[in-house]
Every structure is written in C-alpha cells, then in structure tokens.
C-alpha cells in the first residue's frame, strides 16, 4: 500500500490513503461536512456546493466531496466564511422551495431542514414568484413533488448506478431542471423505493408512508425481511402495533441500505383485514370460530387418537418460519408423533452442495463475499428479479472493484450490462455451456458461483468438480426461495435428514413420506401444515385425513382445514432465520396481531396438551436456540454476533452427508420481485404492481452500454 498522506483537519492531524476524499476522511474523525449531492458509493457530481471547505494556500473554497487529500494539507471545515457560503447556497436552494415542512413527509429527518436550521438561512432576498409544479404520482409506489427537489441527483444515481434500472433522469435546464421518470409521466421500474429513501428532502415520497405519521412518533425496529431468501435487515417504523414504514437507513445488516420493493413496502400483509385472528374448528362441514384452548385440545386429542390407531401423520413445514420453530416442529413430529413424514417445498439443492463441500472451510460465499470476490459466476437465475440483494451486491462489486461477472442463463439478465461473458443456455443445459468459460474462469484469481434450482443432483457435483478443476479458490451459493428456506433444510424438515444433515435412516428412523407422497397417499390419517400452502394446486388424495393448518391467512390449504390455527407473522416473532448464504440472523418483534400466536407457541401448546411438554422442552426461542447450538451441526454460532444484529455463517458439515435426495423434489417457485408466494398475494402493494415488468429473463433495462 502506498504511503499514507498526512494532513490536518480543524487542527486534528490525520493520516489517509492517497486519493481518499476529504469529506470521507473528515467523517472518519467525526467531522460531518454538510453534503447534499455527495453520497458514498455513488459517482460524484459536485452539484450542491454545500461541502465547501477552506484549504490553506488555496484562495477559493473547495468542494470536499471531490477534493482528494494532499500531503501537508491544512483544512478547515467550520469557519465564519464557510458558514456564510453555505448559508448562501441554502438561500439559493430555497428560492423555489415551497417550505411546506409542516405537511412534508420528510419533516424531522430532512437534510435541508437540518442545514437551514444549522446555518440560519431562514430569510431570503428573493421576492420573485416561485416556480411551481404540482405533485405527480409516477407509480403505485412513487410520488414526486418537483417543487421540493434540490437537484442533488442522488435518486438518478441510485437508480442507474445502484439498481441498473436507469428509470430517472434530469430534463430541462437551469431553474427549470426537473427529475423525470422514464415513461414521460410514469415510471416503469423495479419500484424499489431506493430513490425515495435516498432523497435528502421530501421530493420523492412513497404511497405507503406519505401523510401517515412523523418519524419521531414511531418505534424503529430492526428485523429481517420476511420475503425472499436474501435476508435483508429491514427497519420497521411501528406505531401502535402497526407497521407504517420499512427502510434500512441505518445501514445495519448485511444489506446496508439496500431493500427491494418487498422489503420496503410489502409489509402491508401484516395489517391485512384478511388476517386470521381466531382459531376455527370444522363443524358440520363449516369452519366455526373456537377458543384457543378448545382448538388445541381438539388437535391434541385427534393426533393422539390417530397415532394410537397407527395412522400415517404427515407434517409440512415451511421456509417462512424461524429456525427454532422448524427445529421444534421436527422434534415434535419425530419424537412425539413418531412420524418421519415431514417435508417442505424444497427450492434448491442445498443438500447435494453441502455434501460435495463437506469438511471444507471457506467454501460457502456470504452476501459480503459477492461484493468482494474478484469474479462472480451466475448460473440459472435472473438475480435482479429473484434475488435482488445478491444482484445489488454483484453490481456494486463491479462498480467499486471492477469485479468480473459471468452469466449462464436461459435469457437476458440485468448482469448483461457488465458481464465479461454472457452465455445463453436452456435450463438444465447450463453445465455443458459452462465449459466455454473454462479458460476465462481459470485465469481469474478467485470465483464466487451462484446457482439456481436448474442445477441440482448430479449437476451440483459436476459444478463443484468444475470449480475444483479451475485451480482457484471457489465459493458457492445455492439459491433457495424464502426467508428461511435454507433454515428449513438445516433443521431437517425433510424425511431423509435430521437437523444438521444427519442421516435419518442411520439414526434408525423409518422411511418418511415426502411432500408429494403425503399428498398422494390415500391412507394418510392427518396432515399438519405449518405456514405453507401445498394444496394451492393439488388435491389431497386422503379425503378423510384430518387437516391441521397454521397460517396467517385463509389460503387454499387453510380452506380445507379441519382445525385452523392463526399464526403470527415473522414480523411478530422472535427467533432466528438463515439466509441463502447460510448466514444466521436474529429477528426482533415489531408488531402484534391480537388472537394470533407464534408457531413455536402453538406447537408448544399442543405438546403440553399431550403431556409432552417436558420432553419437548420450553417453547422459548432462546432455549430452543441453545438446544440447536448443541444439536445442529454448524449452528454453534457466536451468540453475541447475532444478538447485536450481525450475521453468522454456518459451515458445511464436517463429513459427507451420504444421503441421496431426489432432485425431482426441488423446484423454485420462481417468484419475481413483485411476487412472494402465497404470502405475496395478501400484500395489496405487491398486487398493485403486478402489471410491472415481472417475467424473468426479459432483460428489460439491459442494453449494451458503451464501456465507460
């Protein structure tokens, strides 16, 4: 590394790498230089002139956001001259500003308001009539109030550089310049809301939050997004048990500030009037409300009776519930109900990958690795739609570190904007196509490989041998669908494996039915479904089977229940979830729905009713987690890391799993950024966006950008 440059900022001696920007170096020592247009991670435009500083020996004031540090530089960031200059800049910014803070969403957390307050630019010498343009609605999510805009270009850059969508631009010039959407009067875009969050003022606002509340009236609860498997941290703004806002401006979590439309806006299902709040028992063919104690007693009685009669009981878990719940559920199924017929909708071949990588350290990529690896290969997924955070990370890696990206996909993907090589290969044919990249990939110094559900079974082993044959360090990510799809696998929600990838057969358990087998088995005595919707397009062959369903909504499966138990959402629970990269993160309870219970508690209550409470252990998340740390290989993760909002990655098992799973059982739901399985259909916000470009491999926004 080149020698550090020595300089002083406000009298404090500092050392910094050559080329670092003054504004960043000052920030590091706690000097916050005002800035509207500068935003770390994006290109510099030096458009606002707020970041002016004095540098000894240079007569003019300099913009700290573009000024690299220099040896011996003497910098001052707060002087009367600077205050005067900043005040002047603010006076200009306010010439056409409506000053409607009392009704503006941003009031209380507005950067312009803060600066005007700090520099006292409350009076203006301008008496001319202000330009005004009425507020416009650009999409079901995005509103624009041109009068409030200070033309900092943050929104334009986050959309083009960050997202790769390029939906925003600046039209006209001078005092008439205005932000414009890509389709004259409306937006066709990812609807991610990044532009809204990054806007320093209240010019861009969201349909969800506008005119709802004030920032200081909410509790801000950091938890994990309940939708896809990427596991973004989302900070929910909650008032009176109602979630009003989702963002992650504090940059805690693996996603920094990133969230896709689902993390930012699709929390509305939580308040849906369709939420189930009372247990129901089928009486005379109709579901009738019942008390919790009656419902639990009824379920326990039935389960006991069926078990004693030696009937098959099938249990369906989910990628939507916590690790603790999955662990507890399989323990209950296997130890109390004595059934090994437990499964969930499998969306990626994690088992084969972990088997192939058994005993290796550093073989699984983290979300952060995708931002740092020198090269990334994407196989069989349209990441921008299916795994938005991973797409963001890879793109940022290309932007900041010039990482090489390769893709082998069935159609155009957004990575094509910057890939070194994009190969089109039909699903299932990716492995053959991969050979064409061998030379280029072996020339890389390291590689992260991300693969979708079309690479499964033998193909996963082929992929790992291909990786091994490159002679460079390779890390893998096996894509799965939902927030805890990976955790469901880890916790043994499949008949072949116990928690921690231990063979069920080797442990002496009987062969259990897989999910399709349960549904097709005419002799099934009971089906217990926890937060899943397996009957959405299949019929249960066992017409007489007793069906227990725990869910938030009256899904297709729930409609066929004999007992329906309303469960709490992930935003109303404690516990941990494991993301697509095997990173364990902890939830915080943000809200509460009267009448609904966490799935862990529901299972616990049934166990208690059966007199099995002591065998099952307490249904307290921390207690269950402590047991998991002992029992589930890989889950002995450091508690302080996850307790403080961090992510801890689990390792592949130390020895080969040695159990074959049927690749035919693996099928991703292929959600786009505007769908989220059955849960997504209860989000009005997502519903309103269904007409947005949503199909995979359309390559919208892809174009051969001239090399820059």
């Amino acid at each position, binding site marked *: 590394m080149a020698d550090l440059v020595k300089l002083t900022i406000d009298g404090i001696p500092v050392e910094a790498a050559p080329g670092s920007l003054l504004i960043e170096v000052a920030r590091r020592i706690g000097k916050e230089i005002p800035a509207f247009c500068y935003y770390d991670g994006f290109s510099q435009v030096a458009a606002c002139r707020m970041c002016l500083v004095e540098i000894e020996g240079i007569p003019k004031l300099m913009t700290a956001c573009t000024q690299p540090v220099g040896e011996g530089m003497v910098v001052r960031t707060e002087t009367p001259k600077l205050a005067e200059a900043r005040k002047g800049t603010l006076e200009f910014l306010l010439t056409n500003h409506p000053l409607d803070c009392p009704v503006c969403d941003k009031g209380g957390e507005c950067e312009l308001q803060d600066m005007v307050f700090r520099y006292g630019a409350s009076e203006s010498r301008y008496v001319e009539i202000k330009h005004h343009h009425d507020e416009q609605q650009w999409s079901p999510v995005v509103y624009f109030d041109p009068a409030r805009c200070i033309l900092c270009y943050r929104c334009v850059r986050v959309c083009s550089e960050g997202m790769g969508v*390029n*939906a*925003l*631009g*600046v*039209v*006209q*010039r*001078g005092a008439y310049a205005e932000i*414009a*959407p*890509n389709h004259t009067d409306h937006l066709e875009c990812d609807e991610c809301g990044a532009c809204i969050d990054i806007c320093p003022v209240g010019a861009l606002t969201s349909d969800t939050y506008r005119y709802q509340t004030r920032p200081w009236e909410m509790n801000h609860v950091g938890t994990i997004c309940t939708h896809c498997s990427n596991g973004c941290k989302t900070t929910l703004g909650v008032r009176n048990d109602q979630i009003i806002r989702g963002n992650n401006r504090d940059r805690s979590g693996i996603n920094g500030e990133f969230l896709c439309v689902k993390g930012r806006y699709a929390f509305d299902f939580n308040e849906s009037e369709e939420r189930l709040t009372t247990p129901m028992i089928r009486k005379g063919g109709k579901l009738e409300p019942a008390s919790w104690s009656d419902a639990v007693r009824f379920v326990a009685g039935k389960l006991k009776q069926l078990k004693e009669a030696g009937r098959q009981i099938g249990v369906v878990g989910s990628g939507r519930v916590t690790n603790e719940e999955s662990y507890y559920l399989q323990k209950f199924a296997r130890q109390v109900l004595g059934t090994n017929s437990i499964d969930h909708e499998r969306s990626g071949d994690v088992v084969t990958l972990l088997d192939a990588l058994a005993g290796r350290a550093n073989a699984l990529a983290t979300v952060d690795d995708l931002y740092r690896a020198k090269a990334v290969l994407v196989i069989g997924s349209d990441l921008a739609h299916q795994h938005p955070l991973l797409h963001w990370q890879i793109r940022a890696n290309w932007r900041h570190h010039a990482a090489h990206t390769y893709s082998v996909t069935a159609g155009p993907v957004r990575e094509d904007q910057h890939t070194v090589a994009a190969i089109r290969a039909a699903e299932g044919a990716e492995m053959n196509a991969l050979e064409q990249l061998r030379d280029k990939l072996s020339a890389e110094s390291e590689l992260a490989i991300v693969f979708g559900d079309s690479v499964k079974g033998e193909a996963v082993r082929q992929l790992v041998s291909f990786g091994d044959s490159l002679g460079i360090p390779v890390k893998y990510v096996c894509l799965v669908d939902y927030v805890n799809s990976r955790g469901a696998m880890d916790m043994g929600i499949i008949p072949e494996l116990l928690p921690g990838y231990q063979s069920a057969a080797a442990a002496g358990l009987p062969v259990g039915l897989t999910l399709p087998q349960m549904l097709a088995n005419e002799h099934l005595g009971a089906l217990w479904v926890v937060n899943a919707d397996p009957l959405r397009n299949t019929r249960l062959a066992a017409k007489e089977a007793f069906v227990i369903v725990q869910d938030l909504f009256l899904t297709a499966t729930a409609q066929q229940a004999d007992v329906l138990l309303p469960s709490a959402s992930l935003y109303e629970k404690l516990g941990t979830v494991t993301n697509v990269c095997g990173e364990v993160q902890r939830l915080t309870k943000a809200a509460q729905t009267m009448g609904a219970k966490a799935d862990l508690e529901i299972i616990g209550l049934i166990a208690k009713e059966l007199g099995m409470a002591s065998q099952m252990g307490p249904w307290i998340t921390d207690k269950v987690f402590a047991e998991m740390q002992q029992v589930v290989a890989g889950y002995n993760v450091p508690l302080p890391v996850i307790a403080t909002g961090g992510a801890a990655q689990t390792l592949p098992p130390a020895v080969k799993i040695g159990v074959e799973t049927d690749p035919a059982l693996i099928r991703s739901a292929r959600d786009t950024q505007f769908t989220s399985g059955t849960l997504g259909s209860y989000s009005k916000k997502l519903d309103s966006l269904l007409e947005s470009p949503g199909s995979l491999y359309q390559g919208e*926004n892809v*174009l*051969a*950008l*001239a*090399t*820059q």
Partner: protein
Amino acid sequence: MTLPQELEQKFSEIIGKYPPEYKKSALVPLLLYSQDALGKITPELVNEVARRVGVFPLQVEEVLTYYSMLHFPKPMGKYHVQICTNVSCQLTGGPELWELACKRLGLGHKEVSADGLISLEEVECIGACSWAPAIQINYDFHHFVTPEKLDELLDNLRQLQ
C-alpha cells in the same frame, strides 16, 4: 424505425467518427441532423438514437431538453427565432427586441405560428456577448440587432417561405 436513406448514411458517417466505446458522443450531432432532416424529433426517433449509441431513451431526452437548439417534445417552426435576454443583451436592448418580436409575430416563448413557419424563443446566453444584442435564427447569428433590423429580418422570413 427505418430512417430515410440519406439520414441513415449520415448516421453511419457520424457514428463512424467516434471510437466504438465513445459512440455516445455522437448523440448531439445525430439529433441535430435528424431534426433538420425530419423537421421534428419524435419519440420513435428518440428510441432509435438511444439504441444506436447505447444509452437509455430517457438519457436522450435529458440531452434534448437541455439544449435550446434541440426541440422536444414540441417541434418548433421552420425558422426558429431565438432572442437572448441574458446579461449583455439585457443591458443593450435584448428585452425590447423580445417584446417587439412577440408583438410582431403574435407569439410567446416557445410558440409556433399556425402555419408552422416561424417560432419564437427567449434564450439564455448564446455566446455572442461582444456583439450584443444578438439573436439567432436557425444556425445564423445576427449581431448588434436594432428594432429596425429585427423588423427587416422578420419580413425576410415571411418572404422566404
């Protein structure tokens, strides 16, 4: 969009002048030539130009609305009269010329005569301060313009048809 053959040729010629990785630089000349050849810039043309130089249509719109010599989305007249009222011209009679032109033509800022022949625009500095007040009609500059000279110029336009 298929372009008239002549314009197509011009496009290849202009784009050919730039190294392929900088073909974006051809944007302004392409738009200027298209505007002259086709009389107006349509949304289809915007898409076509965007595709050819490898940018998004919105980025073409940014450029189109930035430059006063490019007219989008509303086309201007066959003769586009631009009167500068920026500082130098303001001090030397620009605003008077502007008012005169408005009255004579019965047009306001960015308005076009019913027959599409003449349009009027009040512009910022056109870089002719040394010869203020200055006006620009299409690509021609006129310096030290007096009210009489303006009258004459506008008369000529009518005759030119």
